[in-house]
């Protein structure tokens, strides 16, 4: 801070600090604080706000675990909202793993194998879907996977049976992978491209097999990128609203849909914020697990 004043004078330093303070307080810290605070309060009619009934409570979180309808899950009957929460986390993890296995070979190819001259062109082609909005990307798969859609028509050409693609979580997984795979590709590519190619060649000269090179040299080096990609894909998937609502089947539900129900249909912002807080919590846990697991700092993840 003192350095800032010395370099830019008191007025400008105050402007910088003021803008940053507005951002971090009015747009980040206090909103998060009120989210947490609201989630611990009763849902009351307007005239009772601030009255004797306006006390702190855990009832919004109890709603989450004590829903009347239950669903069997691993020999247990769990409340429906807990079940949806678990499924969301589970399938977001599945999406994260799939995007990693799709993106890693491609990132390696682009960073170390491909002709340096063709890489910018390939990147440009890959960026086209990113510029076309998220909604339209999932809408494209809605068209492809529909029962009367082009994919089934193609199967028909080969004399195969038509398949009902949009069952269980199929559609959601395909849609999320398609929509977010580039968020995995770019960080891993950036990480691998900083690796000195001589290291790979040295390992080859010493007789290392290709999988040993990946396990011992390239993967460890690309850890920050992998962590960054995983965090982004998991967070975007678990928080996705449009993909599950478009590509869901009757048997698949996503946690963000429950949040929307509380916010818009029930108009119960207190329970809604409790559920949103749970979503924030699981994402925070995921970030810290990744940081531990990959032994990277936050600065490596958010870059």
């Amino acid at each position: 801070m003192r350095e800032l004043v010395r370099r830019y004078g008191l007025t400008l330093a105050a402007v910088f600090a003021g803008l940053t303070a507005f951002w971090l307080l009015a747009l980040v810290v206090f909103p998060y604080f009120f989210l947490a605070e609201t989630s611990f309060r009763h849902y009351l009619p307007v005239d009772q706000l601030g009255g004797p009934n306006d006390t702190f409570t855990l009832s919004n979180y109890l709603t989450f675990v004590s829903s009347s309808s239950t669903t069997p899950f691993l020999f247990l009957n769990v409340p429906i909202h807990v079940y949806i929460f678990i499924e969301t986390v589970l399938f977001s993890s599945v999406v994260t793993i799939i995007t990693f296995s799709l993106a890693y070979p491609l990132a390696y190819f682009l960073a170390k194998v491909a002709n340096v001259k063709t890489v910018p062109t390939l990147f440009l082609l890959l960026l086209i879907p990113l510029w076309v909005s998220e909604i339209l990307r999932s809408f494209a798969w809605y068209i492809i996977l529909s029962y009367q859609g082009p994919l089934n028509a193609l199967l028909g050409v080969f004399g195969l049976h038509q398949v009902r693609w949009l069952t269980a979580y199929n559609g959601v997984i395909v849609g999320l992978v398609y929509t977010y795979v580039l968020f995995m590709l770019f960080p891993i590519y950036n990480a691998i491209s900083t690796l000195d190619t001589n290291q790979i060649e040295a390992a080859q000269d010493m007789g290392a097999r290709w999988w040993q090179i990946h396990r011992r040299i390239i993967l460890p080096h690309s850890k920050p990128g992998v962590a960054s990609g995983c965090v982004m894909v998991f967070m975007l998937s678990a928080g996705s609203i449009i993909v599950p609502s478009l590509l869901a089947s009757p048997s698949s539900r996503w946690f963000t849909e429950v949040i929307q129900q509380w916010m818009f249909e029930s108009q119960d912002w207190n329970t809604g914020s409790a559920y949103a807080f749970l979503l924030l919590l699981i994402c925070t846990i995921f970030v810290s697990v990744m940081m531990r697991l990959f032994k990277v700092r936050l600065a490596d993840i958010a870059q």
Partner: protein
Amino acid sequence: MNKTPPSRILFNIYVAIFLAFMLIPLAIMGGAALNASRFPSVYPWKGFTDQWFIDLWNDDRMLNAAKNTVLVALGVVCMAVPIGTAGGILINSLRGRSRSFLYGLMVAPILTPGAVIGISTLLFWNKFDVPAGLHLSAFGQVSYIAAYVMLLVLARLQSFDKGLEEAALDLGASHAQVIRRILAPHLYPAIGAGALIAFFQSVENFNVTLFTKGTYDTLTVYVGSKVRTGITPTINALALILITITIIGAAAYEVLRRREESRQEKLRELAREAEVATEAALLTGATETA
């Protein structure tokens, strides 16, 4: 590195499949805009039509939503760019614990689901009786988009020579002059890129906007509600327009890049030739004097 041909071929096939996976869905979606079928599909093909483009043009709500989207995006750029730049300069002058604490706070919104940002923004301003609307959407979006600008500015500051500032101050420049003449010109590329990213991130945004928009519509929210309820091929018409613009932009960029590359190549060649020529001249000069 596997330079043996078989693995290379395998890689090339993989890249081709991946590109097809990324691009064919867009082609199918765009193609459906030209199909006379009442449902958005390329199959069965019922003949060519431009009906959906006409419908799109006559969709007043869509045009209004597009106007709102641009309005919000401009607002986001006007807020996120100064805020993110200030944040980047501030954090660059910090060290140690306070730096990592502030850094954590700044990047937290990037790692937060949009729904959470949207709901918390709505609740916060609601405490001060500020109703939901486009301004809240802009505030919510700024909270994470400013972080992108901050990261760009911070990265750019890594290559900044502090000595220049010191020298200017020593020579009697005022602080405002230092900013205007030295720091700002160095940051312009990052600020420009930040403004561009801020604009498009804002246009793209769905999750934050959904919870903060109140009774207004933005393009993404309108399209979102449209694809969820009454599915019509006008969305495909919109998609085809967006895809075409993107491809034209990408192609233009590619042409410019190639031209620049060949220009650089020629310059390098000229430099090489000049070097050879000078060397030759020097050599002849040397032999002559000998």
